[in-house]
């Protein structure tokens, strides 16, 4: 499979012998083209009488030779070249090789800034409109007019409640453990390691339990919501719902928001408990605090207000995570790539909004003295 060529006077003769399959000898091709470019070459002749098997790579070789002969106005003669090969060469020659998509022009900085601001305005409008639609759906649900299947709600509840127990328990236990460890290192220096019990109890119930549940549920359930609804968008199921006149927020979003809003506060209570158990494990086994003593300090530190603040955070996080998951699912594009992007955005935005909401709640509670 070689390019055999020779120069006779002003003619370059290329002999194609045998098989030309997956021809990838770029060096040989360059030499051939360089020779063909020489000024003293006026005619190019391709003899394919001995050609046996060939594939598209030979088409490209002959296409380049033909293109060169045309651009440099040299005579090209094809001898015994199979008709279908010649047809493919002509097809390749007919291809317009200019870039098919115009590159987007670079905008001046002020226009770019304006565009950026406008995009933010538009997405805020879209987000607020989605929340508005969800509130309307909620209103319809209260009036028993929402098109929501009970079974969808129960499935969503099952998925985000007892199926999440294992992971929430494990992570909260570990967080309690870490909290106790880190606290103990400092408290030990002035012999106050007994207060590890209070630290873990207050820390877990006030905020850590809720935050951990929020992060787990954002990664687990929020992502699943975006992926499920996004795939429905790709499969045109959402279009089908719309054309049937069924509000997508009633049918798809409401059951999920309700399920997660109910499940998250309950999971927060579980997380609080498991965190305290984790702290106790460190306290009793490694800090030599007796179990009754640890229990006593924990009970003393536990405060109903802190506990309720944590549960309230859980409730709000449930709403935030489900809203983010469903929003990015509903506004997902129509291909596999978009589903992946929607899932990522759902998780990232849920976590960011959880932090923002935590900040707002903290300020409000501070003002209210809670």
């Amino acid at each position: 499979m070689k390019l055999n060529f020779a120069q006779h006077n002003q003619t370059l003769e290329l002999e194609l012998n045998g098989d030309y399959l997956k021809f990838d000898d770029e060096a040989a091709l360059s030499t051939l083209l360089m020779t063909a470019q020489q000024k003293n070459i006026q005619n190019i002749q391709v003899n394919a009488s001995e050609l046996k098997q060939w594939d598209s790579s030979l088409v490209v070789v002959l296409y380049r030779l033909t293109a060169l002969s045309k651009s440099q106005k040299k005579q090209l003669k094809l001898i015994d070249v199979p008709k279908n090969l010649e047809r493919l060469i002509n097809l390749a020659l007919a291809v317009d090789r200019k870039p098919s998509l115009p590159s987007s022009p670079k905008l001046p900085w002020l226009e770019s800034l304006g565009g950026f601001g406008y995009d933010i305005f538009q997405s805020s409008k879209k987000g607020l409109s989605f929340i508005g639609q969800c509130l309307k759906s909620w209103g319809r649900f209260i009036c028993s007019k929402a098109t929501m299947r009970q079974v969808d709600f129960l499935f969503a509840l099952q998925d985000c409640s007892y199926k999440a127990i294992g992971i929430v328990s494990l992570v909260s236990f570990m967080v309690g453990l870490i909290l106790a460890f880190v606290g103990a290192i400092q408290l030990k220096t002035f012999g106050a390691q007994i207060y590890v019990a209070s630290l873990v109890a207050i820390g877990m119930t006030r905020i850590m339990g809720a935050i951990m549940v929020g992060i787990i549920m954002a990664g687990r359930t929020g992502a699943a919501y975006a992926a499920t609804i996004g795939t429905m968008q790709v499969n045109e199921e959402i279009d089908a719902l719309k054309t049937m006149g069924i509000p997508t927020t009633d049918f798809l979003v409401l059951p999920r928001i309700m399920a997660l809003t109910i499940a998250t506060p309950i999971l927060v209570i579980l997380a609080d408990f498991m965190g305290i158990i984790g702290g106790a494990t460190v306290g009793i086994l490694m800090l030599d605090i007796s179990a009754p003593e640890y229990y006593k300090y924990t009970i003393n530190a536990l405060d109903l207000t802190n506990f309720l603040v944590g549960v309230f955070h859980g409730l709000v996080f449930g709403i935030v995570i489900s809203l983010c998951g469903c929003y990015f699912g509903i506004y997902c594009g129509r291909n596999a790539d978009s589903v992946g992007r929607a899932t990522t955005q759902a998780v990232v935005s849920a976590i960011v909004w959880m932090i923002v909401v935590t900040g707002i709640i903290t300020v409000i509670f501070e003002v209210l003295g809670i």
Partner: protein
Amino acid sequence: MMKSPVEIAVSDLTIAYGDFVLLKNVSFEVNKGDVFIIMGASGGGKSSLLRVLTGLVPAAHGKIVIGGVNFTAADEQKRQQIMQKCGILYQSGALFSSMTLAENIALPLKQYTNYSDKMISELVSLKLALVGLTGFEEFYPSEISGGMKKRAGLARALALDPEIVYFDEPSAGLDPISSKMLDDLILDINQSLGTTIVVVTHELNSIFAIGNNSIFLDTATKSISARGNPRELLKNPPNQDVYNFLTRGEKIKNA
């Protein structure tokens, strides 16, 4: 293009999902350069047969020989070598949505050849020109129509100059004009490149327009109830089911 003596020989093939037998002891041969139609009613096992022929699903029993090599007994590496000689056009085109058409077609070329980037780019343009999509290199699958997606899928299937191209319901979801264009393209590829074509379809217009050999899968007996040129089968139907299928049952109503 010189043709190597490619043929598909299927003998005693049984396809089953658990205890549910879909096709039983089916045998047929596809000759080199054929446009071979696998037809039959919906649920008759046409697509399953295609999935077995392409190695996506294992056969319960039987032997498939592709290009003289036993495909069913081949190990993973051997199968990959055989599959490089086969192109497949899936029903939806199955283009990778995150890649442009050029990247979609370049993927098998980058995987299985040592071509330079320039060579690959030339080949991509050639394959797109072959299916009438010149200039669409930088488009994403979401930016083109269903018919164009199928043609781009075909360009990808043709990337490695396959000896056999399988088509799964090529006319599905296409308007009559696009469907006719695809049929013409199939014939064109078959005639100009000498590619063996295997088409799974129940679209009568396509069957008569392109097929020169066929098998008819019978749902009741789970076997082949007719074989041969579809136009000949219409003239001399071997049984009532084939006659009904090829005439859409319309003549019976009139009788």
